[in-house]
């Protein structure tokens, strides 16, 4: 199925948006490495849902607005985004940094949400669980740390042009701006996760070195009624490394909510 790519100007910021499929709207919020390409799991999901994938302000081909200082700014921005596009209540899915944004949106208001799918989300701190420091890793080290399957890591495409390298640097800069300190969490978030009032599923790879799977139960216990699915032989990117299993689980959860 073909997907479309275009730009929307929302809250004074031009963002790139990919859209594909038909059905209930599903907004996917990407992680630190951006959303340059329409990935196989997006294509799979678009057979059941209308999949909407924005590139965050400050990432990829989207503008970097003056007002963007924190994850809180992004959370409010995406409420504007849903309003502006007239999407109505959406299934919200976010991974890593984008999972943090999704959680922050949900504690602010669930009025425009139908469900919440958090994939190895950042946002909270779990004492005693050691995270890897992506900011001290070379690009090669980071790619390796993201995957359970070393062969898959080795096959990940590296930036092929100056333009693509610039996007990598831009994404890394905004990731630092949003997540350097406190490192990838908001100390206040866990105080308010009880406000999440839509069905929530949390997915985690069992071999996630960036945000270890031990974060999963902690997150689950903070959100009323949330379920946790741990995916075996999988790193920080279940939607890439175990795309088929991920899509099946996500689809079953979201369709279960709709039913």
């Amino acid at each position, binding site marked *: 199925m073909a997907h479309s790519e275009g730009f929307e100007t929302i809250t004074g910021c031009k963002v790139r948006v990919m859209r594909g499929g038909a059905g209930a709207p599903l907004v996917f919020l990407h992680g630190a490495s951006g959303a340059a390409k329409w990935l196989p799991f997006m294509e799979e999901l678009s057979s059941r849902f209308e999949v909407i994938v924005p590139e965050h302000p400050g990432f990829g081909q989207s503008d970097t607005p003056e007002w963007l200082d924190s994850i809180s700014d992004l959370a409010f921005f995406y409420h504007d985004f849903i309003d502006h596009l007239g999407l109505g209540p959406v299934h919200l899915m976010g991974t890593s940094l984008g999972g943090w944004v999704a959680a922050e949106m949900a504690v602010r208001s669930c009025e425009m949400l139908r469900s919440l799918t958090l994939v190895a989300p950042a946002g909270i701190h779990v004492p005693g669980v050691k995270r890897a420091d992506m900011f*001290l890793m*070379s690009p090669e080290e980071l790619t390796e740390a993201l995957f359970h399957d070393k062969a898959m890591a080795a096959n990940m495409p590296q930036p092929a042009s100056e333009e693509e390298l610039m996007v990598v*640097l831009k994404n890394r800069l905004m990731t*630092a*701006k949003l997540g*350097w300190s406190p490192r990838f969490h908001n100390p206040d978030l866990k105080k308010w996760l009880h406000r999440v009032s839509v069905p929530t599923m949390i997915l985690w790879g069992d071999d996630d070195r960036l945000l270890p799977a031990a974060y999963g139960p902690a997150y689950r216990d903070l959100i009323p009624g949330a379920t946790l699915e741990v995916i075996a032989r999988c790193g920080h990117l279940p939607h890439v490394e175990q795309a088929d299993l991920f899509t099946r689980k996500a689809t079953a959860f979201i369709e279960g909510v709709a039913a």
Partner: protein
Amino acid sequence: MKFYLMHLMPYADLDLDYDKEYNSAWITLPNSYYDPKKGAKLYNRYLDELEYADPLGFDGVCVNEHHQNAYGLMPQPGVMAGALARRTKNVKIAILGRALPLLNNPVTVAEEFAMVDNITEGRFIAGFVRGIGAEYHAWSANPANSHERFHEAHDLIIRAWTETGPFAFEGKHYQFEYVNLWPRPYQNPRPPIWIPSQGSSETIDWASHPDRRYTYLQTFTPVAMLAKYMQMYKDKANEHGYEATPDQLGWSVPIYVAETDEQAIAEARPHIENFLNKFLRMPKEMLLPPGYLSLKSMMGVMKAKSSIGQKQTIEAVMEKGMFICGSPATVREKLKEYHSQIGFGHLLSLLQFGTLPAELTRKNMELYAKEVMPYLRDSTVVRSAAE
């Protein structure tokens, strides 16, 4: 020209085999490598060396700030400046500098610097930097906000020094209901300000602005780059409608003087190579966190063949003019040549580097002070009189 003794205070007793297990002498090297018994001796030895600069006739002594590393043991350089304030009588004391973006409260630096300025009755020089990239890892300061915080902290400190308090300060990163500095600086309106940098057109543009006219200090750079940046400062000053004076230009460089060229190279070699390959060692991601450089500059770094991590030799740094080494005559000639080409007014010599031991440091200081400095003082005075 004025002469300063710069010190980094490295942990010279570092187990140099650390790099078999760790990839850097910064941030991630466990502090179990630091032995307080040895460190205490080093601190006192290094303070002795800085104090010795006073009777040797230096114009000033300089300390600086680095965190969580074996390269420089002065995370709080104000402690060193305080110790030197009472034990020296004539030299200026420069803190080059404090890394302003790291600070949660820049007023602490305004206070600390004003105190040293008072105790020394105005022998103080203030330095402001962004700090090298590793400091942002060490202090969890967000490198993406580095430029914003530098400028805001700078503006706050200048106002604290020069405006009658109390006043309120409302910035993006810093907010204060009352700023009312006790003590005010001794020097009126404020201490001289130096801006150390490894070379940045943005920094030069800012430092040379007529509202500031800060002394731009080029640190540890090939001499060709030094010439380029000094010229850039002069050109910027011209664009702003004034002529930059030598007092606005400084250079900081490691120097080693011995009886002959051969002896100087033989004596300096292991210690400068340790400085380059052991103490400065860090991966690119540690040195250049996101936001430390502009995206455009970062792109240049990514495309350039990296010299970080490659083993450096004494010959390579001497060739580039990043290290001046030789007999008194050789060192005099080189410095005289660079001075006449480039026209800096402040020369900061790093006369202890890496593992250079106490006896050689002292010999280096004495030869430099007795056989090099007077000659250059005379020749550069003649030169400026002839202009």
